[in-house]
């Protein structure tokens, strides 16, 4: 496997060695903006020589909705629904990041029950998001069935969300000062049921996909992103951990009482190839689902009675100041740089989308690889274009 890979890297493209009249034609291949495996409206321009990709240049911006400009015109509360649309697979986490940034700047204290509920929903959404990532990655590799299985499980999570806030994708549930509603009756039982159900399912995915020989051959040793490269390009989240860097904001700078929970940070160990290959990034996500299950169980145990919403005026007014606040999203660190001049809307809100930074490593890694490897790499970076383009 490895030998072949290096051979086609080195012997095919020696400039001047192959007579120019029999050299194969280089093609410029336009992958996207409508392509099944670019996960949205990403456009990648590939320079290819046969199946070999010499260069990949991503073009983004097809989903730019001026979220940062909009933020300057609306109030803090009004901006929460816009955060849902950033990383539309992890609306809860986006809400949480924005709410935390505003609360920290305004000095708002959140009640304990709301804190735990936030953790529960953030982690449930992490599970949902990772299930989508896992299933779609199977789809990218040509295995259709894991995709359906993962979406089946995700449905249960969405049902849980629907029960509590009525929405299945754009929740706006975690608001400034707490959460919007308390749990309905019997919700905790259903949640526990789901957690019991999910555990064996993960073993099923591993049997079906993770340890499939073809899958390992397609993803192991492919798209290797060493730790220093990952850090240099600002990769965060499971992409960074897949490269073997043990870095998780929930441990490093705990927010929302994450320090009270007992969980591990899974990192890529190069089990099926090199540290930082596509398989590592994929498998970190699978493991993180398990860790999220652990966190939710603990949070459900700790859940106390009490209010779910702090006393916050309807029109939130923040003092003048600035803050840069990051939370650990399923795709990495989502940052909000919030500048307030006093008043009900931000002076400037800069959003750091984790997918944006994760994608920036693509041209570096997708060089001299095969066409199918670009798909493998894109899938393992797990980008959401809503967040890249904002």
């Amino acid at each position: 496997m490895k030998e072949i890979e290096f051979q086609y890297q080195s012997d095919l493209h020696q400039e001047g060695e192959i007579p120019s009249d029999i050299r194969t034609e280089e093609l410029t291949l336009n992958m996207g903006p409508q392509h099944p495996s670019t996960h949205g409206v990403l456009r990648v321009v590939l320079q290819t020589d046969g199946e070999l990709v010499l260069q990949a240049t991503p073009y983004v911006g097809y989903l730019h909705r001026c979220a940062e400009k909009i933020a300057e015109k609306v109030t803090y509360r009004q901006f929460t629904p816009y955060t849902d649309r950033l990383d539309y697979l992890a609306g809860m986490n986006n809400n949480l990041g924005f709410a935390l940034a505003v609360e920290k700047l305004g000095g708002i204290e959140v009640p304990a029950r709301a804190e735990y509920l936030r953790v529960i929903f953030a982690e449930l959404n992490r599970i949902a998001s990772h299930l989508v990532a896992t299933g779609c990655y199977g789809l990218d590799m040509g295995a259709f069935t894991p995709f359906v299985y993962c979406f089946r499980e995700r449905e249960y999570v969405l049902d849980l969300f629907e029960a509590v806030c009525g929405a299945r994708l754009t929740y706006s549930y975690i608001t400034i000062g707490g959460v919007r509603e308390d749990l309905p009756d019997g919700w905790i039982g259903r949640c526990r049921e789901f957690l019991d159900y999910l555990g064996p399912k993960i073993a099923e995915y591993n049997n079906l996909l993770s340890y499939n020989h073809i899958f390992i051959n397609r993803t192991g040793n492919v798209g290797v992103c060493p730790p220093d490269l990952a850090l240099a390009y600002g990769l965060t989240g499971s992409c960074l951990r897949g490269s073997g860097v043990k870095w998780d904001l929930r441990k490093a700078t705990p927010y929302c009482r994450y320090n009270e929970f007992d969980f591990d940070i899974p990192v890529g160990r190069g089990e099926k190839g090199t540290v930082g290959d596509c398989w590592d990034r994929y498998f970190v996500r699978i493991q993180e689902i398990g860790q999220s299950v652990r966190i939710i169980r603990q949070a459900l145990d700790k859940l106390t009675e009490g209010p779910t919403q702090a006393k916050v005026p309807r029109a939130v007014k923040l003092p003048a100041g600035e803050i840069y606040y990051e939370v650990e999203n399923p795709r990495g660190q989502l940052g909000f740089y919030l500048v307030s001049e006093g008043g009900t809307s931000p002076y400037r809100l800069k959003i750091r989308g984790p997918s944006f930074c994760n994608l920036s490593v693509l041209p570096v890694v997708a060089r001299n690889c095969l066409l199918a490897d670009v798909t493998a790499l894109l899938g393992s970076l797990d980008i959401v274009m809503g967040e890249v383009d904002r």
Partner: protein
Amino acid sequence: MLERLIFVLFALPAVVAGVAILLSTNIVRMAFWLITMLISVAGLYFLMGAYFLGVVQILVYVGGVAVLLVFGVMLTSRQLAPKLRPGPVETLWLATVSAILLLGLVLSILRAHTGMEPLPVPVANSPADIGHSLMGDFLGPFELASVLLLVAMLGAAYLARPKVPVQNPQGSKGGAV
């Protein structure tokens, strides 16, 4: 009557395709015309009762050689097509050579019709007969052909090998033989 009709059905495409190969300037079209011709000729073989030959013609020439040909043609640059037009001197040469060949062919056909008796050809139609004659009477030529093919294969492998030593990250220098 019916046989004549079917003969025309196969022979006409073969001739048309042969002419089209010469006249076409698009190299991929040429390849597909060639395939048409090969299939038509295979049809003629079927008509003559040489089923084995016809099937092998399709299997080897159409399924193997022609597909590889198209494959190679598709990979080469599209700008190559204008170069295929021969210059005036080349045209002259080619015309001379083809004319001489055609003359010889026509003459031999004419002679065959007028003068000679048809040679008694041993009927070897079934695969078993062909096998027996290949491994019996014609074993020498058969083996010679196989050696020739082997040499051709080795030559192809030699030509296709990388001209520069492959830089192997593992340290071992492989590649150039």
